[in-house]
Each structure stands twice: as C-alpha cells, then as structure tokens.
C-alpha cells in the first residue's frame, strides 16, 4: 500500500510539536525528556473543554498540527484514532466508584469512558462529520491504525488523518499496565502525491523474521518501549530524516509492518 505523508503532529515528553522535535529525532540535537506539555484546545466549546480529559488534549494538539501542516481543513478529513487504553484516569475513577457501596458513577465520566471519546470531542471541536473509526491493538495500536488509515485512504481515494495517543494509568492499574508518559502523534495520509507531501510510505504486511526498528537515543528508545503510541517513533525519525528505512513495526501474531520511507522531490 502506498500513502503520501502530507503533515505530521507530535506531542510528548520533551517533544513539543513536530517542528521542534525533528532535530532530536534525527539525532542532530540531544533529546531531553520533560513532562508532556499540552493545553486544552480553544476549538472546543467551554462545556466540552471542562469535561475533556488528557486524550482529548493530546489528539487535538497532535491532530491539528498535522492537518495545518498538510494545508487541509479538519472539518473535511476522515479520521482514524488509535490507542491502547483510551482515557486511563477516567476508567480508574469509574472502577473506584463501582467498588464503593453507593456505586455512584458520574454521567460525564461514563460518556467519557467510551474508547471513541477522543473522536467524539474531535468531531465537536472541528465540526467534522466525515467517517471516523477508533481502534485498539494493545502494544501494536499505532501499527493497526497506520494499516487501517492507509487502506482507507486507498479504498476511499481521499486523505485520512491518523491520530494515535496514550497516557498513563494511575495506581493500581499502572502496575498491571505501565504506560510511562502522555504521548500523541498524527499523520495526514493521502493516496495521491501533492506539492507539499513530505514523503511516500510503501507499507506491507510481513511475516518474515525482521528486527523491530529501534531508536538510537536511549531516552527516545525508553519512550518508544514505554508508551504504545510511541512505537511510531522510528517512523517519525525516518520522516524527520526524510529517508532511511525500511522501518519495521511489530503488529500481531508475529507479523510486522515493513514501511519504506522515500522523500518526495
């Protein structure tokens, strides 16, 4: 499958946007971790902004950055959201309430508990009514999202925004499912070449033994293995270098995505 990358968005620990992070991703500058800095998006109406959790902030920050870079309108774009665990603070709070004798669940927490909550807030913020899907594939959630978004761009012959995110569970779930940091990344993928495209991806599903791509920098490698959505970092590094490859991402049942990254002229 071939897809053109028209824009990239990124927010994570020490990664304040795609533009500001490229030098760290290529190794031109040292990577310095710092708590993920992300604010609530002004695109959301005030009531929704108050109710929105970390996933909403991450997806709006990364998604809007990628779409603006692509020169596209968020209101027109189909979206693929992907995450290992959705809103982790929210599920913890609900399970805590359900363990008390009163079992009082907050209605807002309940409607925020759906895995597609980030997609719901996104459509309200951007007034986008285009198709949207919300996926989960545990540690391989980014790989699943990339495959689905590329297949959708190809089948529907129109661009798709892929938005991946994860953030930590609080204790005690953090012991069962450790996620190290809040992280969001987005790609605008198009089936056709355009003037501004950064690179072309040739993606294939591969069952051959091949080593998963890693990050050279120890800090970035810890981030890659510590956050499911950050499994995209080797692909983002290849995009930042605008070459290299192929990038190998682990998928399911021993399969991998093999992604050749070629700079657009």
């Amino acid at each position, binding site marked *: 499958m071939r897809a053109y990358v028209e824009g990239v968005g990124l927010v994570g620990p020490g990664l304040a946007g795609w533009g500001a992070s490229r030098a760290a991703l290529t190794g031109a500058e040292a990577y310095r971790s710092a708590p993920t800095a992300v604010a609530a998006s002004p695109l959301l109406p005030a009531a929704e902004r108050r109710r929105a959790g970390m996933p909403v902030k991450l997806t709006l920050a990364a998604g809007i950055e990628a779409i603006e870079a692509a020169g596209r309108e968020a209101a027109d774009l189909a979206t693929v959201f992907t995450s290992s665990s959705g809103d982790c603070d929210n599920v913890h709070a609900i399970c805590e309430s359900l363990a008390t004798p009163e079992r009082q669940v907050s*209605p807002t927490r309940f409607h925020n508990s759906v895995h597609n909550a980030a997609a719901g807030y996104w459509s309200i913020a951007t007034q986008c009514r285009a198709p949207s899907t*919300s996926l989960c594939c545990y540690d391989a959630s980014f790989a699943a999202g990339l495959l689905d978004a590329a297949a959708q761009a190809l089948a529907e012959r129109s661009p798709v925004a892929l938005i991946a995110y994860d953030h930590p569970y609080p204790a005690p779930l953090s012991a069962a499912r450790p996620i190290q940091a809040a992280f969001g990344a987005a790609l605008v993928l198009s089936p056709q070449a355009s003037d501004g495209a950064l690179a072309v991806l040739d993606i294939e599903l591969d069952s051959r033994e091949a080593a998963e791509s890693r990050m050279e920098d120890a800090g970035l490698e810890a981030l890659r293995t510590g956050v499911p959505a950050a499994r995209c970092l080797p692909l983002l590094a290849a995009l930042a270098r605008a070459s290299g490859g192929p990038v190998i991402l682990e998928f399911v049942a021993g*399969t991998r995505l093999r992604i050749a990254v070629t700079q657009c002229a």
Partner: protein
Amino acid sequence: MQPLAITAYSIVNCLGAGARAVADALFGKRSGLAPCDFDGVALDTWIGRVRGVEARPVRAELGAYDCRNNRMAQLALELDGFAETVARARSRYGTARIGVFMGTSTSGILETELAYQQRAAATGALPAGYRYAQTHNTFSLADFVQRYLGLQGPAFAVSSACSSSAKVFGNAARMIEAGVCDAAVVGGIDTLCLTTLYGFNSLELTSRGPCRPFDAERNGISIGEGGGLALLERAGARAGAEATLLGVGDSCDAYHMSTPHPEGLGARLAMQQALASARLSPADIDYVNLHGTGTRTNDAAEDRAVADLLPAPTPCSSTKGATGHLLGAAGITEIVISMLSIKHQLLPGSANTRQVDPAVRCNYLLEPKAARVRRVLSNSFGFGGSNCAVVLEAAA
C-alpha cells in the same frame, strides 16, 4: 465498495444461542428481557442476560483470556458451524490472509471492576492473578478470536461505542479492497458489567421495565449482552453465500457526546453514504432494522432521519425490545438479524412496544410479517456521535 459475500455467521443473545433459536423467538415476537438479576446489581431495570455463559470457561490453552466477554465470544465461535467454516476458509486462503476485526465497547472490563473490589487494604494493589491485557484491554476480544481460530493475519478491535460491530464491516471491506487480506472474520461481543449498568443509569437512560422502542411511552434502554460473528469473502469467490454486503456508511454527529443530533443529521448522512457505497437509491430498501434504543431522543432523531430519507412505506422496526441493547455488539446482532429476515422472508416486529408514538413518521412494524425482503439497511449509532449504516442483499 466492492460487494462481499457473507459466507458464515453466528449469533447469541438473550433470545437464544444460534441462528435458529434467535429466529424462532424473534419472528414469534418473544422477548428475552427480564428484571435485572446480574450479580449484586441493585438497579430497578430490565436486562437481556445470556443464561449459562458463566459455566463455560474458555478452552484450556487460552485460559489466560478467561472472562465473561471471551466466554461469550467462544460461545459465538462454537455456534452455527462458524469455527468450522472459518477452518475451511483458512485452508483455502492460508492463516495470514484472513483478518480479524472485532467490535466491543467494554471488552472484559468486568474483571477490572471485580479486581477493584478486592484491592489489598494496605497497598491498594489489585489481586494477584488479575490479567489486564487478556481481559480488560479493548483488543482482548480480537486477540482471543484470532488465537481461537488459529489465524495470523491483520487483527484489531474497533471500539466506537454502540456502532463498533457495524463499523468493522467497513474496516474489513477496505482491508480486502486494499489487498491486505482475502477474507475477514468480523463481529462483536459485549457482556454485562457494572460500568454500563450503573453508567447508563447515571444518565437516566435505563428503562425501569423492558425497553419499548418507538413507543409513545418509551423511557429508556434495556442493556443486553452477547453478539455474533460473520465471515466475509470476495463476492464470487465461492458459491453458497448467506448474503451479500453491499455498502457501509459512516459519519459523525459533531454535536454532543451522549445525545444524538436532534434532526438526525449524522444518522441520515450515514444512511446516505451506505446507499451510495451500495450504489442503490432509497427506494431499493425493503426493510430498515433501526437502531431504536427506546430512549426518547434517540428514537425521535432516528425517525426523523429515516423519514426524511426513505420512501414513507418502507417497513422499519427495532429488535431491541426482544434482545435488549447489546451496545458494542448491537451492530453485528442486527446485521445477523437482517440476514435472518432475508433468509426467512419475514420482517421482525417490535416486542414490548405497545403503541407507536403518534409523532413517528416512519412505517414502524409492531408485528412480524411475511414480505419480499431482498435488501436491508441496518442502523447503529453510538456515544461520541458515531454513526454507521450497513446495506445487505440476498445472495445472488
């Protein structure tokens, strides 16, 4: 989209286990709803519970995945010859060429709810033996189904609340069209848990009696459980298809997290796109299986969307008065019901609905009825304003 053959399906819910039991109950206008007796839940509501699922642990080599949701999935795999048909497809296509795309809203979250009731007093830790990845995580269901069937192709879960297991038909169609796989197992499972029972209660969306879709006195949903599976292959790949998947339409309301757009704008858009994807016009549809949850706002918005788009005489009904609302598994449940409607040339009525709301404009059926059923539209809408509509046709 390129039409796909549906070459096997299975179904399980409170009406029964397997296509025959569900069809007999459905076209006999029976309901499987009963007052809530789910473990320790003190809520004044009715549910659609699948009896006996507790007593059927998942098979030993997949024991780590054992939880109510995967037990239900195993039940669906064992019904209607589904796993056997997939095994034959596996030998034709190879394990790597069959995808698994499963819809669920809450997966095995019940395990986490129970674990939170057993936290260590001193440390707050969850009990030993709690398995997050194989139970609670949204991917657990697709992972379990893929392993049970011995498949090694692409797999993931779709979780967009109550549209989840309708949307998987679109994901599978695109994957097959893009050549990533040759066939796909799709479907969805959701099972009773405290999050949905107490959550919908907190939103005052659960009915105190059995739900009564499109009734003048409807007052909320009855939560059900179960789901189903379907095997999709390229049309023409093999004779003996049960039905043809013609189109899938997908939209967002962009309106509110838990209330549908009052004019049914997103719902109408999804139906229009499903018809466009199927290359059909509204008059080609013989029956609409409505989402019809039984809440005042959902049914009113859907009625408006259907009446604005389809010819007035098009028969419509919701089957949730019989099955309850299976949430993330509602899509596959009603898509299989639509196939049963085509197979038996019978339209389902609306169990528990007494008097159709006089404000309703669509041709809402209370009683089951014999009819020529060739093409069916099935609607599924969810929180987050997520809408999906699917068009099926009788196999050629």
